[in-house]
């Protein structure tokens, strides 16, 4: 089976390069808007699938079954936070979409500049977004390596997987920019959706089996199925809030709001997006439950490898299982790559436009800035590949570190569109307090305080600081 998977992966990568070439030919100009936002022309269908593919990354797809198998059914909280992300969008997307079309926004920094008009605030907020995005990119690169290594039974080693997939990704992204990224997202989104849907139907008729697994858990591993205790419920609530708010302000998510062709397209994609956790996470959740008895028999398997292992198991059971498994595998790989390329595209836009474009490249043309962004993408990807080849932390911990920081920029959007009382200086001090608290607690090794995610506590301190100092500076 692993040789068949290698052939399918090779074919898929060829398709990606071809999409990159077609997107390159379809470009309208060498402007930043064309390269980074596909000219602001994405319709509802492409927008939905690019949002879906970007949001459902290695973190979601590999971590969900792994966390369920490891920690138990309480990890249904992942369903909650992915749904909460869409609701968080609704708190600022209507206003942000309106103004982004009027003012031709390209990066999140354009909003910071327009709303707050304080260069130091924009600089720090961009710095936070860059740090969080680099971390996210690293997680995707590591996931690529783990996935290809797991599903090809070691035929493609982790290091070779990371390097080769990163190379393919950077080639098609440089060629086609956002257009290539969005189009590859459509292909992978459909594949992932059909594959996971098919697996669901393989799992669904086996209700008796699921009941038996639940009964087995009650008897053998009750801590994985019992009603979560109040401490875990506090952790649950704070995790949903932290990741729900944090993930909504990913730079690549913000840029997809800008890239929508019309309000109708944005509304339609959001309406469908809110159901995606149910169609995706629920299936991954069931895969995690079903895998628990398997992993009791097999000792010491890396938890990030739960999904690849289960897919290989189902693939060997029947021809239909094999076809669906292949679709999910390619879909998974594509989901990881599409998240990574979106993050990379956002990173290069922020660094070239908001950092270099305002300092050392202040006087260069937009075309030159776009070119600089493409070169930056190559530099960023290879630096991150170097780090990915030396992994030191598990995936889930990486998500939490990223979110602790990322959520600190949420007030710039949430309060920025809703509160007239908030001043630029207040926002700057609030952000500094939140960021310092999040980073400080991370280095102290604190994940939670009284069961609450420290990132969320930092966020509340950020908002409090923002209001207090806005009031003080106003007076």
């Amino acid at each position, binding site marked *: 089976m692993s040789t068949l998977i290698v052939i399918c992966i090779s074919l898929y990568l060829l398709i990606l390069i071809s999409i990159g070439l077609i997107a390159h030919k379809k470009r309208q100009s060498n402007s930043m808007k064309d390269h980074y936002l596909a000219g602001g022309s994405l319709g509802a269908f492409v927008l939905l699938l690019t949002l879906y593919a970007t949001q459902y990354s290695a973190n979601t797809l590999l971590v969900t079954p792994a966390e369920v198998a490891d920690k138990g059914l309480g990890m249904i909280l992942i369903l909650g936070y992915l749904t909460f992300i869409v609701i968080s969008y609704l708190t600022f997307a209507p206003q942000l979409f309106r103004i982004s079309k009027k003012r031709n926004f390209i990066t999140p920094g354009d909003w910071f500049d327009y709303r707050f008009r304080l260069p130091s605030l924009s600089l720090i907020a961009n710095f936070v977004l860059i740090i969080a995005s680099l971390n996210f990119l690293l997680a995707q690169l590591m996931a690529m390596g783990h996935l290809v290594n797991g599903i090809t039974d070691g035929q493609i080693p982790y290091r070779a997987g990371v390097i080769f997939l990163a190379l393919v990704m950077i080639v098609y992204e440089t060629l086609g920019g956002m257009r290539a990224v969005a189009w590859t997202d459509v292909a992978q989104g459909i594949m992932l959706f059909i594959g996971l849907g098919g697996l669901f139907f393989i799992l669904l008729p086996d209700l008796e089996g699921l009941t038996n697994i*639940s009964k087995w858990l009650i008897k053998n591993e009750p801590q994985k199925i019992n*009603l979560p205790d109040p401490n875990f419920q506090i952790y649950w609530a704070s995790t949903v809030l932290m990741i729900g708010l944090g993930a909504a302000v990913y730079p690549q998510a913000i840029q997809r709001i800008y890239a929508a062709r019309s309000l109708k397209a944005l509304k339609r994609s959001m309406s469908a997006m809110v159901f995606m956790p149910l169609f995706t996470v629920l299936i991954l959740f069931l895969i995690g439950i079903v895998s628990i008895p398997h992993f009791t028999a097999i000792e010491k398997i890396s938890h990030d490898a739960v999904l690849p292992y289960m897919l290989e198991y189902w693939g060997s059971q029947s021809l239909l299982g094999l076809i669906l498994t292949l679709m999910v595998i390619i879909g998974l790989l594509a989901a990881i790559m599409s998240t990574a390329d979106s993050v990379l595209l956002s990173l290069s836009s922020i660094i070239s436009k908001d950092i270099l474009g305002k300092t050392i490249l202040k006087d260069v043309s937009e075309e030159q800035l776009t070119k600089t962004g493409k070169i930056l993408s190559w530099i960023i990807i290879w630096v991150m590949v170097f780090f990915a080849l030396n992994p030191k932390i598990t995936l889930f911990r990486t998500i939490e570190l990223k979110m602790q920081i990322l959520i600190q920029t949420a007030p710039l959007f949430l309060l920025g569109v809703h509160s007239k009382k908030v001043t630029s200086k207040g926002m700057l001090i609030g952000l500094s307090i939140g960021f310092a608290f999040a980073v400080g607690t991370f280095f102290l090794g604190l994940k939670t305080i009284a069961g609450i995610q420290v990132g969320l506590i930092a966020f509340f301190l950020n908002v409090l600081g923002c209001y207090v100092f806005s009031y003080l500076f106003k007076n």
Partner: protein
Amino acid sequence: MLNIMKKTFPSWVWITYLLLFSLSIPWYIPEKPAMMLILGLPLWVIASILSVVITAIFTVWIINKYWKEK
């Protein structure tokens, strides 16, 4: 600036979300009935999934009812 700050959704929408969020965490289900198996899963898991389903339907409804071109 004031124009872009114009509210899209009424306040009660956010209160409803708060309520749905609190229902998605099974703090309100007593321990014994919580472990009753429905569709192969404990009741507390089903309750959490159900609250997410209601949240999704509610979201589609408010997007279509209140989010208009200004």
